[in-house]
């Protein structure tokens, strides 16, 4: 036994032993640590060597960008014929949106990013003021894309103001009365026309921006439009549904459970068909409710039902003591939800929420079934063009790349959020 180097009780804090580093060591430990490991490593290297070079050849080295016809592509190289993407690029982005109005789409897109920024970045300078812009953006974006008259714009703003005031005024009264009030206002706004409530007619019907039919919308613009509205609207709606489902009020609870279970129990395609055909039966005669809007509503409520269940999981995971401490402090229902319960429940639910969002985003491609021309829907007219026949691989790879980038970004952001919000200090 060796002697103690310090007298008992006087041992100083020493730095930990210096780490042994180096690439060789890392490789030996991680790739060649055992016979199985060595075999697996060699096998992987072999597979990569077999797969990656031919893939790169097709994607990059043997591919052709400069061509006006698929035959020209074939003459110049054996790889991908990216010329089809080059020629149809704007169509893949804007669909059939009129060329002279495409600046509106671009502007709406830039404004969308600007509206998202303060939502996603909580340390942004001047965030509070900019959030007001974010709140106003849906209206701005809608009229940029669809166009509209003075009367329509005014009517929309007035109805939204009525909604906001109702929410403020009734928010102290508990979730039951609030939902009832919002429902009444919503019904009035929706079915107001036949009973003579037509705010738009009080104003001029001069067009501020020339209307563009939604049938002309298409391409990635359509994907982003449906995805963005679906994501931003389904989150608050899903949270309200989850709160309603966990509420003590029987009627509220029953409505929320019924809604969630019905929507979740039906395939999205069915809802989209309902949107495209059946919904017209429920609308008052004479109202013409835009197909794309109907689709956006369906996508939103579909994902809201899933979000609601994800958030409910988060609510259930919160210890009861958190609710009790919030109550004991004297916070109102909405205060305790907003300040104590939801911040924690949503944090737990982030992976599930983002999962739902990514699913929604990719499911937007289903709209091609009811005739909307999202990027996948556009592949048919493009491939029907004899110039680009049978170049479907190129188109699908390009579209897949777009979806992958969007979804990967969402997934990364969710990881960042999780790490940022982690205050548990578990090791």
């Amino acid at each position: 036994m060796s002697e103690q180097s310090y007298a008992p009780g006087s041992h100083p804090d020493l730095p930990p032993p210096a780490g042994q580093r180096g690439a060789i060591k890392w490789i030996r430990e991680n790739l060649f640590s055992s016979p199985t490991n060595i075999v697996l490593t060699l096998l992987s290297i072999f597979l990569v060597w077999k797969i990656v070079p031919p893939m790169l050849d097709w994607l990059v080295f043997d591919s052709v960008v400069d061509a006006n016809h698929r035959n020209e592509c074939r003459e110049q190289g054996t790889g991908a014929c990216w010329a089809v993407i080059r020629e149809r690029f704007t169509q893949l982005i804007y669909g059939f949106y009129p060329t002279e109005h495409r600046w509106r789409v671009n502007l709406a897109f830039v404004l969308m990013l600007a509206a998202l920024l303060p939502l996603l970045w909580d340390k942004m300078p001047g965030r509070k003021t900019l959030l007001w812009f974010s709140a106003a953006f849906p209206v701005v974006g809608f009229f940029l894309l669809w166009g509209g008259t003075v009367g329509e714009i005014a009517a929309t703003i007035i109805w939204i103001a009525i909604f906001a005031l109702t929410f403020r005024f009734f928010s102290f009264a508990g979730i039951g009365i609030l939902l009832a009030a919002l429902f009444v206002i919503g019904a009035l706004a929706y079915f107001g026309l036949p009973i003579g409530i037509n705010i738009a007619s009080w104003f001029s019907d001069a067009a501020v921006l020339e209307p563009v039919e939604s049938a002309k919308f298409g391409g990635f613009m359509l994907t982003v439009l449906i995805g963005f509205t679906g994501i931003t609207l389904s989150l608050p709606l899903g949270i309200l549904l989850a709160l309603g489902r966990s509420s003590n009020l029987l009627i509220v609870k029953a409505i929320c459970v019924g809604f969630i279970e019905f929507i979740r129990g039906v395939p999205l395609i069915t809802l989209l068909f309902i949107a495209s055909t059946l919904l017209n039966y429920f609308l008052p005669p004479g109202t013409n409710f835009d197909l794309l809007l109907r689709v956006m509503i369906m996508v939103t409520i579909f994902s809201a039902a899933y979000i609601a269940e994800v958030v409910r999981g988060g609510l259930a995971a919160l210890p009861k003591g958190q609710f009790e401490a919030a109550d004991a402090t004297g916070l109102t229902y909405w205060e305790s939800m907003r300040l104590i319960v939801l911040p924690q429940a949503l944090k737990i639910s982030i992976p599930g929420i983002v999962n739902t969002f990514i699913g929604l985003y990719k499911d937007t491609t289903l709209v091609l079934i009811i005739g909307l021309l999202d990027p996948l829907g556009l592949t048919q007219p493009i491939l029907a063009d004899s110039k680009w026949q049978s170049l479907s691989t190129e188109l699908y790879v390009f579209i897949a790349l777009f979806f992958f980038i969007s979804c990967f970004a969402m997934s990364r952001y969710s990881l960042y959020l999780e790490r940022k919000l982690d205050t548990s200090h578990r090791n």
Partner: protein
Amino acid sequence: MNTNTNNDQRLVVEMDQVHKWYGTFHVLKDINLAVQKGERIVVCGPSGSGKSTMIRCINRLEEHQQGRIVVDGTELTNNLKNIAEVRSEVGMVFQHFNLFPHLTVLENCTLGPIWVRKMPKKEAEEIAMDYLSRVKIPEQALKFPGQLSGGQQQRVAIARSLCMAPNVMLFDEPTSALDPEMIKEVLDTMIELAESGMTMICVTHEMGFAKTVADRVIFMDEGEIIEQNEPNAFFDNPQNERTQLFLSQILAH
């Protein structure tokens, strides 16, 4: 029991023939309890005897089904406004601290004053720092609860309640989730609080604490108040045999 309030004997909490059931299980039976301003009450009794349920009725974390509970002149009914008023006057410290883990220690303390008392943030922070100093952890103000030891968390929880300037503090076994070496720091904080004149109702099995600060010790069993007395008489000369049995069990080791 009479509810006349006169000046030097103001009742802060008054429970009058209170009954409560969980389903068909009669958990509180005819609870009568009057707590005067500045009084320190210790509640003890076997596990499951209804101690937590009783003090949780005082700030309406549990609803009673019969009888009257009046807190600081406000009767607890289904009236949400009354409940909010009572809760803002009653501080509660839980067995498992129940700090808000997503907020810093300081934010935990300022939340109530800012949102319930509508106090400006700066003032609330000053008050919070003052109470954090009194429970001797001002240097932890900007940490999150998860970074603190159990004893420190419980002291934060006490400070958080005190920031609301409550008229009465309820403690539900505040030390029973703590490691032995941390119990003392929490009890010391509670003793100081008692000496400052706070009205306190403590569910605890810390008999040393009861002897030091309690004006009255209450023994509960099977939902009833079996016996109550001032601490010396209670411990030295318990009347009811159930009390005797209970005391012999907890003092046995």
